[in-house]
C-alpha cells in the first residue's frame, strides 16, 4: 500500500469525524433542523470501502449517511448547506440529513427508510450489468436493517442474476435503543450469505486497512461478474442513535471503554506513525487542511439563503 493511500484514508476519516462533530454541535443547538444520525466511530468503514470505488460506481446509504457521502467524494460545502436547510445544499434544502445525496459522484442517497436502499442498489447494479459496464454498486446497511425483508429480496435477486453489487453491513451492535442480539437471530450477519449461495466475510470494521482490503476483494469479484457478497464490518455505535438521544439504555462508561480501546482514527494514527508511513507533522497538516475545509463549509452554509416559498413547487415533475 502506498503512502498516498494511507494519507487519503486518514484524511477521509478525519474529515468525517470533524464534519460530524460540527454537525453535532449545531444540531444540539437546534441550528440544524430535523433528525441527525452521526457516523462517529464508524469512519473506517466508509473510508475503506469507498477507496475501492470510482465516481461511476454507486453507493446507497442509510439514515446515517454523512460518512458515506464524504467518502464517496461529495463536497462538504453543499453537504453542510443541505443539513442547514439552505438552497445551496445538494438537495436545495429539500432533503436534509436523512436525504443527503450527490448523484454527480454516484452517491444515490441516504435513506430515511431503514432497509430502503438494498433494492435500489440492486437495481443500479442490474442497470450496469445490462449496459455491460464494469461499474459496481455498494449498499451500506445496519445490523438492525439486516432483518428487513428487503435484505432477503435484494440478496436473492442479486445472487440469482449475479449482479455487480456488494452488501456492506455496519454491525454497530445497536439498532436505536435495541441491542442487536435481542432482535437478530444470528450473531454474524455474514452467516446469512449461505442462504444465497454467496460469500460472507467478517471484518474488523474499525481497521481501515482491513476494511479496504476485504471490501476490495468483494468489489473486485463483483466487477468480474461473479456476483454479490456480504461483507460484515464489526464496529460499535459511539454516539446516541440520533443527536439528542437520552441513551437510557446503556451507560456512558460502557461506551467510552469501547471507544477508547477501538477508535478507528486513533488506531490508524498510531499504526501509520509506528510503521513510518506518515509523520506526526504530516498528520497535523492533513488535520489543518481538513479543519479549514470544514470551517469554510460551515461559513458557506451560514452565508447561504434559505429556499423561498415558491421553490416548494420545483423539482416535483419533469414533464
Amino acid at each position, binding site marked *: 500500500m502506498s503512502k498516498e493511500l494511507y494519507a487519503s484514508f486518514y484524511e477521509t476519516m478525519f474529515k468525517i469525524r470533524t464534519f460530524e462533530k460540527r454537525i453535532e454541535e449545531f444540531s444540539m443547538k437546534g441550528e440544524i433542523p430535523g433528525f441527525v444520525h452521526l457516523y462517529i466511530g464508524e469512519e473506517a468503514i466508509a473510508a475503506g470501502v469507498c477507496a475501492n470505488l470510482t465516481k461511476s460506481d454507486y453507493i446507497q446509504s442509510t439514515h446515517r449517511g454523512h460518512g458515506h457521502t464524504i467518502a464517496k467524494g461529495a463536497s462538504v460545502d453543499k453537504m453542510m448547506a443541505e443539513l442547514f*436547510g439552505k438552497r445551496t445544499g445538494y*438537495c436545495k434544502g429539500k432533503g*436534509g440529513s436523512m436525504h443527503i445525496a450527490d448523484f454527480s459522484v454516484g452517491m444515490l442517497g441516504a435513506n*430515511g427508510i*431503514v432497509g430502503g436502499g438494498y433494492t435500489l442498489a440492486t437495481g443500479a447494479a442490474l442497470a450496469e450489468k445490462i449496459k455491460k459496464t464494469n461499474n459496481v454498486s455498494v449498499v451500506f446497511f445496519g445490523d*438492525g436493517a439486516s*432483518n*428487513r425483508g428487503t435484505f432477503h429480496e435484494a440478496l436473492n435477486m442479486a445472487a440469482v442474476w449475479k449482479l455487480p453489487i456488494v452488501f456492506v453491513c455496519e454491525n454497530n451492535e445497536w439498532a*436505536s435503543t435495541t441491542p442487536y442480539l435481542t432482535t437478530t437471530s444470528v450473531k454474524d450477519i455474514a452467516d446469512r450469505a449461505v442462504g444465497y449461495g454467496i460469500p460472507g466475510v467478517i471484518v474488523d470494521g474499525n481497521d481501515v486497512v482491513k476494511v479496504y482490503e476485504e471490501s476490495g476483494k468483494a468489489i473486485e469479484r463483483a466487477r468480474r461478474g461473479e456476483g454479490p457478497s456480504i461483507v460484515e464490518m464489526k464496529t460499535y455505535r459511539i454516539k446516541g442513535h440520533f443527536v439528542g438521544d437520552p441513551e437510557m439504555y446503556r451507560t456512558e462508561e460502557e461506551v467510552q471503554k469501547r471507544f477508547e480501546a477501538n477508535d478507528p482514527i486513533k488506531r490508524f494514527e498510531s499504526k501509520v506513525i509506528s510503521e513510518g508511513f506518515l509523520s506526526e507533522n504530516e498528520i497535523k497538516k492533513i488535520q489543518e487542511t481538513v479543519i479549514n475545509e470544514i470551517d469554510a463549509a460551515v461559513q458557506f452554509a451560514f452565508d447561504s439563503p434559505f429556499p423561498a416559498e415558491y421553490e416548494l413547487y420545483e423539482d416535483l415533475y419533469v414533464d
Partner: protein
Amino acid sequence: MRKITFSEATLEAMREEMRRDDRIFIMGEDIVRQGGIFGQFKGLSEEFGIEKVLDTPITETAIIGAAIGASLAGMRPVADMHFADFMGVSMDEIFNQMAKIRYMFGGQTTVPMVIRAPDGLIRSAAAQHSQSIEAWFNNIPGIKVVTPSNPADAKGLLKAALRSDDPIIYFENKDLFRQIGEVPEDEEYLVPIGKAKIVKEGTDVTIVSYSIMMQKALEAAEILEAEGISVEVIDLITLSPFDEVTVIESVKKTNRLLIAHEAVKIGGLGGEVAAVVAEKALDYLDAPIMRVGAKFTPVPFSPTLEEAYRPKTKEIVDGIKSMFK
C-alpha cells in the same frame, strides 16, 4: 380535572386496558427500553413484562402480520408503527389480510387489533417521517380508522379501540404527544368509534377537521366569530367509515362547509367528505365547499419550505371569508 399530556393519556389507556384484559399485548420497535420515541409506552414493559411488551426487529411487515396472526389465535394485539410513514412497508398485510380476513372467510373469525401510527409534521423530519396518509384507508373496506385531537379523546378513543372487535388504525399526531389537557380518570371513559363530535356550535359555516388540525380549526373559528361569522366545528374522530349524519346535519343548518386536514389536500380525506355533502346536501349549500390541506409535494426538509407546505389557520379564515362574498 387533573391535566396530563396526550402521550400520558395514551399510556393510561394502555395500562388500564392491559390490566383489564390480559389478551392485550403490544409489539413495536424501541418500546421496551425507551418507552417509545414520544414516551407513549413508558413503564409498560416493567409492569406487564417483556412477554407482553415486545421490542421487535425492524420488520414492519412482520409486526403487522404477527399482530394479525395473534388476533386470529385469540389475542388482542397492539402494533406500533413508530412512524405512520412506515405503513407502506406493511401495506399488503394491512389491506390484503387485516382488512379482509373477517369478510373473505365469511365471518368465521374476528381480527381484534389496533395499529398505532404516529403521523404528521414535526420539526423538519422531512419526506419520509412527516406524512399523514389516512386517506388511503377510506377506500379500504374492513378497517376502521380513528384519530384523536386532544389528550382526553386520546385516552377514551384508544380505550374504545382496544375494546373493539374490528381491526383499527389509530393515528396519533406526533406534535400532539406533548400537549397537555384535562383527561378523565374514569376507567369507563370511552370515546365512541363511528361518531363525530360537534366541538363548537355555530350557524353560518361548518368546519370539519380532525387531529392536530382541529387546533387551527378552532383558532380560525375564534377569529371569524370576532368578525361576526358563527362557526360550527366538527371533530371527525372516526375517519373511516366516517359519521356522515353529523356532517350533513350540520351543513343543512349552516349551509357552508370547509374541511381542513394536515394531509395533502389533493386526494385527501376532505375530498370524500366534500363528495358526500355534494351528493346528499347540495341543495343546502350557499357557497363552494372548500378544503384546506398541505400542498401537493412531498414534505420538504428546510424550515422555510416546511412552513410553506403546512396548511394554515389563515387559509381556513380566508377560505371561509370568501364564502361570504
